[in-house]
């Protein structure tokens, strides 16, 4: 399969499986992009997410562009993004033209209440896995917990956390180099 088409199909698959926003997509990306295709590592995905949260636009598209570009340049980035968008476009068009009250159907609401529970569990599993690879020293432990608590209970823009994280990283690494 030509690689550009492969990028399109893989991200279309990720798009179909994503319920409820960019973060919910992480477990699917891990499966398709990291495990099945080997196009990126989990660490790289984390970096893409961080950049995606501070740059404008939809996180899912940002991540698709990153992975596609890394693998096959600009065209790759575009193909992956189109793939990501394609299923949504088709599904919404079908629903908008056929079912005007889709979201009010009781069975749809029940199904999505169930899916939300599943998304929780999938995100939880992804967090456990990421925890093992990210939390390696005192800084990372304190940082994960502090950002989690602050972001959950206060209304602070993710941009602030990511910028502060970058500054902390540079200070810590510079201090390490100096002390050697």
């Amino acid at each position, binding site marked *: 399969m030509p690689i550009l088409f492969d990028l399109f199909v893989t991200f279309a698959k990720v798009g179909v499986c994503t319920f409820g926003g960019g973060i919910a997509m992480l477990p699917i990306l891990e499966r398709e992009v990291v495990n099945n295709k080997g196009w990126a590592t989990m660490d790289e995905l984390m970096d893409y997410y961080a950049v995606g949260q501070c740059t404008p636009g939809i996180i899912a598209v940002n991540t698709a562009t990153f992975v596609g570009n890394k693998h096959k340049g600009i065209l790759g980035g575009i193909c992956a993004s189109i793939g990501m968008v394609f299923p949504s476009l088709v599904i919404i068009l079908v629903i908008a033209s056929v079912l005007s009250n889709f979201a009010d159907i009781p069975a749809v609401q029940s199904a999505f209440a169930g899916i939300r529970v599943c998304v929780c569990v999938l995100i939880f599993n992804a967090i456990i896995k990421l925890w093992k690879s990210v939390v390696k020293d005192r800084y990372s432990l304190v940082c994960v917990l502090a950002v989690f608590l602050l972001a*959950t209970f206060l209304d602070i823009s993710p941009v602030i956390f990511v910028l502060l994280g970058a500054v902390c990283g540079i200070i810590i690494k510079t201090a390490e180099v100096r002390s050697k």
Partner: protein
Amino acid sequence: MIYLHLFFEFFKTGLFAVGGGLATIPFLYEMSAKTGWFTYEELANMIAVSESTPGPMGINMATYVGFETSGILGSICATIGIVTPSVIIILIIAKALQAFRSNRYVDAAFYGIRPCSLGLIAAAGAIVAKIALFNVDLFMQTGLFTDLVNIRALILAAVLLVLTRAVKYTKNLHPLWFIAFSAVMGILLKY
């Protein structure tokens, strides 16, 4: 020219909405007030549909608004509009990162950012968990702790945890199987 106008309005949303699908909502309210393409009530309906279909919410919203405004071509224009700024910006950043990848400071910055990224992911997960597993609104009304926890949802979550982590035959299945299973359970048990 409604198509160009749609493209331009969603291009602006894509350019200025930082932080994912939910961040596009204020822009859509503004668009509603400014253009009259849809009412606030219709917008609430569109948000509900976007949340209950697969795919990134921002894309779903753009497609829906574009379609309601001017049909299939409109939905395609709106979607291309919201995606274009992201793609261009990320391509530029990716190029810059490739050039500076071996730079000590870029490396140190990402060392610092990675745990923040995990913290933010966990916080987003907590919001989903709050909606899926707890009835905070109901608890506020009644004050009963038995109303706070959604028992049926917690049981499903426990079953899914065991299936995804502990059972040898199921834990390596594609996540879509668990999503489908949960949807069926949701319908059968009327969540």
